[in-house]
Structure formats: C-alpha cells, structure tokens
C-alpha cells in the first residue's frame, strides 16, 4: 500500500482512518517520509513492513519513540531507501519499466538494505544503481479537487502522487472538493491524475487533517505537540488511546473533525491563506 502526500503534507488521513477502522492486517506501507499515520498503523498492528526514506514527525519532536519501539523490538521491519531512489521506484512503475538507472545510493550501505543491484552502462561501462519498479497493490491519495470522472487536480507541490497513482493497481482518492467536468476543462493543465488512473473517489473536506493541505489548511503543530507529549509520558499506549478517541469512536469523518472543532479548523485555514498569500 502506497500512501500519497509526504510527511505531514496532504496525507490521505480519512482513508488511513478507514483502513484502521476495518482492522486490516499484514500490510506493507510504502511512503517516502512517514509521519503519524505510520505510527497509527504500527500501533494498530496493521503493518509488518514499512518501505520509507525517513520516519518521525519533525525536528522539534525528536526521533519517533513509536518507530524505535516497533523496529528495535523486531515487530515491524523498516526497509530504508533514499528519498530519490524510492521516488524513482514509483517513477519506474509509473513508466511501466522494470527499473531505472541512477547515481544515488551508490557506495552507501543503503544499497544492500533493499537488495539494489548495480549495472554497467552498456555504452560507457560506468556503474549505476538499478532501482526496481515498485507497483503498489493499492494507492491512497488526497487531492484538492476532482470531477466525477476522477480527473484530479493538486495545488502547490505535487509530491509523488502522480507517479504513485500511475504505478498502483488500485487507486483510491479523497478530495477536498468535487467540481464539474466544465471546471476540469477550464484548467486542464492543473490535472495531475487522469480519471482512467483512478478507481474510486470520495468527497472528504479536511481529508488530510491534522496534516496540511497546501493553501487550504496548515498542519496542526499544537496537536502534534500534544500527541507526542502523551507518547513521551505513556509510550505506545498513548497512541492506542489516541486511536480509540480519533479513529474507532467517531462513526463518521464529520464526527472526527468535530473533535478538533470548527474554530481550530478555521484557524488552520487562515494560517494557510497567509502562507500562500491568498
């Protein structure tokens, strides 16, 4: 399962929440920078392996204690790739080729972790890393707007979502807004996922919250601070309690958002507008 966005940006939180509610097990998560959603999946027992370049929330909150707990005890395997190498694995799959040559990771110990093979350039004999295509079974993505045919538009930084969508077998998308076909046609240059690459689309306003959605709402850093303080005090139990409160108890996404409250959501919207100068 590949999860779009990156770190605490445009994480498909509503989809991750639903996956947790369905008590899925035995998953492999692929995500370039893994954030709180990775911790949720670890504590819920949903993932066996995480394929990533980095995992934690961010510098002010230190190394993830959940990461340390689950990886150091051997309960979850963390398969580390460089950020670009993992990006190229999605790109290779998106292009429909078995691997892509690159210079990155050469000479480092990361080469061995994922079993990356090197090859000789058939023209010059130079050494290159051949990073294998990664075709996820399922991709979870969150976008700014989409029409009923699944044509999706993303504002701001696109992260790797287009490659991930093209690479995956099944693509599930949540969107902040559903727009008319006419709206898509007015700005086709903004469409980053064609409808034919999308299998299911769900309307989910604030679908990444408390992570950010570019231009619409900023990530809720106070919420992260509160969350990590609880983990510092009580370890993984704090995350289990968090899941009870935010994932299992509220029956709908609307009920989930009510836990944060309209005022908080409006504040994060104002902050986002300030930051993008809208």
């Amino acid at each position, binding site marked *: 399962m590949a999860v779009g966005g*990156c770190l605490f940006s445009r994480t498909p939180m509503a989809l991750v929440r639903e996956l947790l509610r369905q008590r899925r097990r035995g998953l492999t998560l692929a995500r370039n920078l893994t954030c709180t959603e990775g911790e949720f999946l670890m504590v819920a027992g949903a993932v066996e392996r995480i394929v990533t370049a980095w995992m934690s929330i961010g510098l002010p909150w230190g190394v993830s204690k959940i990461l340390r707990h689950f990886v150091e005890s051997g309960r979850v395997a963390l398969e580390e790739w460089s*950020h670009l190498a993992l990006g190229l694995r999605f790109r290779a799959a998106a292009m429909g080729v078995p691997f892509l040559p690159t210079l*990155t990771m050469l*000479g480092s110990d*990361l080469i061995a972790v994922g079993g990356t093979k090197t090859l000789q350039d058939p023209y010059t004999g130079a050494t290159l890393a051949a990073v294998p295509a990664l075709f996820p079974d399922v991709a979870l993505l969150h976008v700014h707007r989409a029409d009923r045919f699944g044509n999706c538009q993303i504002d701001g*930084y696109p*992260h790797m979502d287009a490659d991930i969508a093209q690479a995956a077998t099944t693509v599930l998308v949540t969107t902040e807004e559903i727009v008319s076909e006419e709206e898509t046609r007015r700005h086709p240059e903004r469409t980053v996922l064609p409808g034919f690459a999308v299998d299911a689309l769900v309307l989910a306003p604030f679908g990444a919250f408390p992570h950010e959605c570019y231009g619409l709402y*900023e990530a809720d850093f106070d919420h992260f601070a509160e969350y990590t303080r609880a983990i510092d005090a009580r370890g993984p139990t704090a995350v289990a309690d968090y899941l009870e409160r935010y994932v299992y108890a509220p029956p709908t996404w609307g009920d989930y958002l009510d836990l944060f409250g309209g005022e908080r959501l409006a504040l994060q919207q104002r902050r986002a507008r300030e930051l993008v100068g809208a």
Partner: protein
Amino acid sequence: MTAAELLAVVAARELRDDTTVFAGVGVPLLAAALARARHAPRLTLVIEGGIIGPEIAPGRLPISTNEMRAGRRATMLPGITDAFLFAQRGFVDVGFMGGAQIDRYGNINTSVLGTDYWNPKVRLPGTGGANDIASLCREVIIVTPHERRRFVERVDFVTSPAWLRGDGSRRAAGLLFGGVSRVVTTLGILGFDPDSRRMRIEAVHPGVSVATVRAHTGFELVEAAHVAVTAPPSEEELEALRALDPERRFLG
C-alpha cells in the same frame, strides 16, 4: 550567543552568492536563509519537498521540507523526484545538511546504531534526502554540533556517502562528482586532506583550542599547516539571524 547561533552564522559564511544550495531543515536552512538575507541575495534554495527558490519568512521557519512554510514564494514546485533529479544532472552547487554520526572520511549515519541493520540497537529516522544530497550535489557542507559521540572513527552504517574509505573509493563506487568539502561545527571548521581524504582541522572558533577540538573528536584529526581562527559573529549577523527565528525554534 548560543551554540546554534554561532553554528548558523559561521555556516552562512560558507555559502556564496549566485549559487544553488540544497538545504536540509533546521540550522542548515536557517543559515542559508541568513546568507540570502546578507551576502548572498541571489542564492537559490532547493528543498527536498520539491521546492525551488523559496523565500523563507522571518518567524515562519519550516519544520519539515514538505510544508507551506518551506514553499513560501517559491519560483517552482517540480515535485520531489524531479527536485533531486536537478541535483543528479549537476545543477546543485552545494548540499547543506546536518548529520547524526560522522566519521573521519565524512560519511554520515542517520539510519541505525549497532552493527546489524535489521536488529538495530537504536533506530534513527533514516536518510530522508540526505543520501541523495550527499551523492548528487557538486559539493557538500555538513553543519553539526561538535560532540565526541557524533565524531566516530567509523560510522555503524553509511547512510550518506562522503569519501567512503578515503581517496578513490567514492569515484570507484560510481559517484561522478561531489563529496564533503567542509564540516562546520560548534568548535571550528574541518576540511579533508586532499590525498588521504581524512578529516583535518582548518579553523577554530575564537577561544577554542585545537586540543579542545581533538578532545571532542573520537578519531585522530589531521591538522592543517595553518589553523585559522574564525571571526566572531558580528552584531549585525546575530541580529539578522535572530530576526529569522524569533520563536527560537532552532536557535536554542
């Protein structure tokens, strides 16, 4: 003046105008923003969230490389993979980043402590874009607190390659260019002997002795023929720096 302030000011001086700099968040990005505010107004920042040319706002320092604060007033948002591919193509002059554990050849470990990757004693967050920056930028400058536990004879795991095992092995591995040129620390500035590629003391900060640098380093340092003393941060430098981080998120 805090250690982080000294580090940021001295690191900022290492950057030149009209260059393209791939910066990691924290002190490196803060130092790059300081350089832009003072002597390098045409320095182009590249941030691994797929962000080119942002203007970091005072008091709005990004926590991650993938957020609106990092992308503020960017000139281009090409996506993550493509941002790194600009480096692979040779467009990025300087990689500017921190490091958890560093060895005498400048190799960095941000992955695991312990000798078995799959059964680590301590699991660290991982490379993020550090391996790519270290592999693909034309030159890399490391910015780090100088602590004995960080400066080790041999890193447990080479997350980000510098000179690997000394002269020759970086090129032999297939990396066409780049390598760590300098390590800016809270005690001084280190470079690498051009022949052996071993780390060497090139400058100490005011009031710091070579012996102190050695005492805080877990391996034997080469010493440059002439060890310089860095100029202390000026009031103007400190004022500009403090204006960037009024919440003291990274300045301590």
